Every structure is written in structure tokens, then in C-alpha cells.
């Protein structure tokens, strides 16, 4: 969580220099979901995410240097500079995709789980999406298939309350999102996504259930998005949010809550937090430096990887 928070804060600092020329969608305030979800997974498990992907990329074990290089459009980036912030990927770490089209990786994640099932792997696949994504038809189509075939997949819904600026009650009559696909046979539950310990323990149980063949489930986690939908700015002043939301977001800051919890329950002292923060800052510094000194792709890279070559 700390790594995600500091990396994204650094992105907002670099952004005005125009060195990152890619639309950024920050997860500041939502870090506990990525951290808790991925902590419950094995490296060989797969995650498919969204354009708001930095948090899941880092939490799933994606390399920080290659993420910053990707944001800078450098050849050493995780997608060779061709994907940018919205298309982070690291198949080795099991972060299989991030897409800029709402809900569009839900079917692919479902197919990934289908392969896991057919190939007899014990892999669990996690499909991550926001509250806007369940407005899309492919969510229901995918869930229907996953339930029908009892696939090893968890649908993780990050509910930050807004599809860009659109509130849930403006888009749906039935606002209990965790119940959205009950009629298709998908059991759902809702949890506080600000509490990383709770996210982890819920996930650990769900992962164990799915891995032993129990079939798909939907986990809804609530969260606050601190930044604007896209870009580095904070937009509580723009008037589209509820008046008390900024105060609630600060009160429910997942990082602050986690620190308090660790201090109270595990007696973690401030010196430890300082050390962890220093380590994370060093990692971010190194990643920024790596991105800055890495070369851009050469012109001939433009035409590479439209197609795979036959082996």
C-alpha cells in the first residue's frame, strides 16, 4: 500500500513536467483493495485489471522500474512503451491485462479461468473492475458462462461510487451491486475496502473456495477515489461529489487505518514505518531514475508486434 501510495504521489509530481504523456487514473485512497486482494493470491494466479491499474500492477508483483518506464513511453517499459499507464501488464507476475474500455477484460479473465479449468491447473483468476463496469452487458454474459462452467474466477468490484462523475443511483435502480448477478447464480458479498486486513481475510477465504472448485463469486469492496477520474489533480472542490466525502475519505484513509492497526495490534513502532517509507521512497526514486535514463523505442519498433511470427 505504501509503495502504491508513494509511487502515485510521485506520478502526480512528475506529471506537470510532461515527461509522462499518458492519461493516468490514480488509485490513491483505493490501495487496500489491490494490496489485500493480491496478498491472498499466488504468483501463478492471474489478475486482469482496468485502466486504473498501477495499484494492482504493483500489488501483484509487477516491477516498479518497468512501470515507470512504461509511463514515460520507454522501450524498457512493461509493454515496451506501447501501452502506457492504461495498459500495464506483467505476465510473469500474473498481471495479465489492463484495458481502457470499461468491463472489457471481464470476458478475457473468464476465458483465462476457462483455460485454467480445462488445462487442469489450480490457478485462480481475478477479474477486477469498477462500479461502472456492471452496467455493461459483457459483465452479465461473462458471469453467466463462468457460473455455468463453474470456473475458478473471482469477480472483484472496486466500488468508488463514481463512473467518471456519474453516481450509481443515476445509472441503476438496484444499487446493491454485490447482488447484481444473483439471478444468474453468482453469490456476492460487500465489504469495506478501506480495511486491508479485512480485504485480505475475505479474499483468502474466497480464493480457497474457488481453488477447491467451489465456483465463481463476486466480492464488492467500497473505496474512495481521492483524485480526479483521470489526471493528477484532486477534485473534491469540483462539486460533483457528496459534501462530506473528502472528510470521509480522510477518515477512512486505508494507509492511515493500516498503520493504526499495525501499531495497535502488532505494536509496530514509528521507526518501522519510517524505515518502510524510506525503502519505498528509494524504490520509487530508482524507478523514476530508471525511466528517465532509459531510451525511447527506436522507430522500427513501431511496426513490431502487430502480429506474432509463426515458430
Amino acid at each position, binding site marked *: 500500500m505504501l509503495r502504491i501510495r508513494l509511487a502515485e504521489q510521485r506520478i502526480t509530481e512528475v506529471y506537470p513536467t510532461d515527461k509522462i504523456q499518458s492519461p493516468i487514473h490514480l488509485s490513491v485512497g483505493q490501495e487496500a483493495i489491490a494490496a489485500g486482494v493480491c496478498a491472498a493470491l499466488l504468483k501463478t494466479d492471474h489478475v486482469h485489471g482496468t485502466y486504473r491499474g498501477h495499484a494492482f500492477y504493483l500489488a501483484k508483483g509487477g516491477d516498479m522500474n518497468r512501470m515507470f518506464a512504461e509511463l514515460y513511453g520507454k522501450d524498457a517499459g512493461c*509493454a515496451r512503451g506501447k501501452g502506457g499507464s492504461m495498459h500495464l501488464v506483467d505476465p510473469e507476475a500474473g498481471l495479465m491485462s489492463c484495458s481502457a474500455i470499461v468491463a*472489457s477484460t471481464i*470476458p478475457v479473465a473468464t*476465458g*483465462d479461468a476457462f483455460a485454467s479449468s*480445462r488445462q487442469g491447473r489450480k490457478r485462480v483468476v481475478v477479474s477486477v473492475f469498477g462500479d461502472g463496469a456492471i452496467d455493461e452487458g459483457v459483465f452479465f454474459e461473462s458471469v453467466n458462462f463462468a457460473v455455468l462452467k463453474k470456473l475458478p474466477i473471482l469477480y472483484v468490484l472496486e466500488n468508488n461510487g463514481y463512473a467518471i462523475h456519474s453516481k450509481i443511483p443515476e445509472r441503476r435502480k438496484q444499487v446493491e451491486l454485490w447482488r447484481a448477478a444473483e439471478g444468474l447464480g453468482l453469490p456476492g458479498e460487500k465489504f469495506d475496502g478501506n480495511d486491508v486486513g479485512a480485504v485480505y481475510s475475505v479474499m483468502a477465504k474466497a480464493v480457497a473456495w474457488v481453488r477447491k472448485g467451489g465456483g465463481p463469486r463476486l466480492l464488492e469492496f467500497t473505496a474512495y477515489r481521492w483524485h480526479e477520474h483521470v489526471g493528477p489533480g484532486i477534485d473534491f472542490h469540483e462539486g460533483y461529489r457528496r459534501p462530506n466525502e473528502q472528510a470521509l475519505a480522510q477518515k477512512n484513509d486505508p494507509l492511515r487505518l493500516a498503520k493504526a492497526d499495525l501499531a495497535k495490534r502488532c505494536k509496530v513502532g514509528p521507526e518501522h514505518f519510517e524505515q518502510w517509507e524510506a525503502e519505498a521512497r528509494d524504490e520509487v526514486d530508482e524507478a523514476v531514475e530508471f525511466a528517465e535514463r532509459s531510451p525511447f523505442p527506436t522507430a522500427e519498433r513501431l511496426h513490431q508486434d502487430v502480429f*506474432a511470427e509463426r515458430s
Partner: protein
Amino acid sequence: MSTKRLKYGEAIRAALFHAMEADPAVFVMGLGVDDHRAIFGSVKGLVERFGPERVFDTPISEAAMTGVAVGAALNGMKPIHVHIRSDFLYLAMDQLFNIAAKWRYMFGGSMKVPLVVRAVIGRSWGQGAQHSQSLQSFFMHVPGFKVVMPTTPADAQGLLLAAVNEPNPVFILEHRLLYDIVGDVPDPPTEAPLGKAYVRRSGKDLTIVANSYMVVEALKAAEFLESQGIDAEIVDPVSLVPLDRETIVSSVRKTGRLIVVDTSWTACGVSAEIAAIAAERAFDRLKVPVRRLGMQPTTCPVSKPLENAFYPSARTIAMEAFSMLGRAFPDINVPVLSSTFKGPF
């Protein structure tokens, strides 16, 4: 090499048996692929031979099932997704264009998507507005897909095998009216190369570039033209991506005249692309402007006289050739549409 006489659908079926025997990663999914009608016989016996794990019906969810196929393909499985009408692919546009086509490139070449999509183009017996469309130009337009339109049973068999062995998304657009065509196919089934055009008939007076079912009509037109002293060459691209520009250009440079006949509309279509290639690479040899034939710029009507007027046929191809050569159309013994298709689907 020994050969067999097979119908178009039988050749596809033989290729599927061959591919599924050879590689356990290959599986077939789509609406009706395990039913008794068996996609015009092209998947007949597959589920009995390979079982429901590898040959299965899907929910009527073209979009999600396309994504499911992509997700399976990422793991080394080889899905063949079948659509009994290509019109249904519109439902899957996001998953096709934003996902399947982009996956490899936008993730920096870190993954492969060996996906095969078979889709059947309908024509005649009142297929109407939504059972008649030919989507090849959409898939040609967006980088990331390979696109073939097999004309003969040998093409259908050979290109299906090539598609299965291809580590990229491949569209195979089959034509319903070709399903009853009989031809010699290699036995055992043998892969045909992508990106190779075929000269279906040699001639010196004009080049007709036609694809899919339009080749059948063009050949019939050419017979009539021959009887009238006009010697037409017919080039069938078969593979649209990659496109064998050399064979097309060398024919046009030889004859100096080009008519392009596509199964779809002309605007921004295959015929526009091929006309542009002729303009770029054979302009100095063109004796007359390029002509194009395709579906009329309307929605496909059901009423037979309107449907006849909507599509190109041997007759309209022959008329275009006469017009191009500045000759009066004789209007005697002119062929009509070749197909005797009696539906219902």
C-alpha cells in the same frame, strides 16, 4: 499428392478433424456447433469424436464468448469460434477490435492470441437485412487480424489449417452459397499459405479481381465474355490480410483494365482498397478507369427482384466488361445468377 472430391462444408469438416486430431489444444465453440444441423455439416460428427469438452455450444453472448476465446488463447489453447452468420459479429465488435486485435501490440508483444473465427456470409432466399452482410473490410481496416475468404473447397480446408497454426487472430469468412460447390482437395488435408492470391482464369483483355462467391459469378461471366470474343483474367485474392498485391498488380499491368467485384458494399471496402492499389502501382498501364461492383448502397432487401438488383451477378459483371471496352451489351444468352440455393438459411 492424392486428392478427394469434397463439398466446401465437407472440406472444412475434414480440416477440423485433422486439426483436432493433431493438436489437443484445438477446440470448437459457437452457437449450434454441437447440434444435429452441424453448421451446414461443417462440424458434423465433431462432438461425437472429440467430446463436449472440445466441441460445445455457447450462451448467446457473442461479445463475452469472443473474450473467453481470447482468454483461452492466451494460455495456449486454440479456440475456433463459429458464427453461422457473420452479421452476428457486430455484437462482438468491442472484444474483437479493442481486445483481440490490440492484445499483442498494446502489451508490447508479451502475449499471443491464436484465435480463429469462422463466420458464414448469407445471400439469397430472402436472407434480408441482417443475415446477408460481409464484414471483411472492417477486419482489413484494423491492424491485428488476418482475414481470408476461401472460395474453393481446397481453400476452405487449407486455410482453416493455416489459421489454426497461426499465432494471431484469423477471420475465415465463408459464403453460404459456396457450401454446395464440389472440388478436389488434398488428402490428407494440407495447409495452404496465407497471403497467396490465385489466378482462377487466365486472360488478356481485362482483369476481374473477385472474391469468395463473386468468383463463381465472375467465372460464369467470363465464359459468356469468351463467347463474345472477350478474354477475361480472374484473380481471386482469397487472403485479404496479408494481401498478395503482386499477383493483382501483375495481372492489371498485363491487361490494363480492372473490374473489382466484392461480396460487400463498395464504400471503403475491399474493392476500394484494390482500386487504390491499382492506382498506386499500375496507373501507367491502365487504359481505362477502374470499375467496381459490390452490393448496392442500401440495406439488403428480401423481395426477389430487389434482391437481384442489390447484388452483383454474372450478368452485371459481363455488362460492366462490355461497358468498359466500349461495346454494346448483346443481351442474348446472358447468364443469370449461378446459385440454385433454396434456403431456408
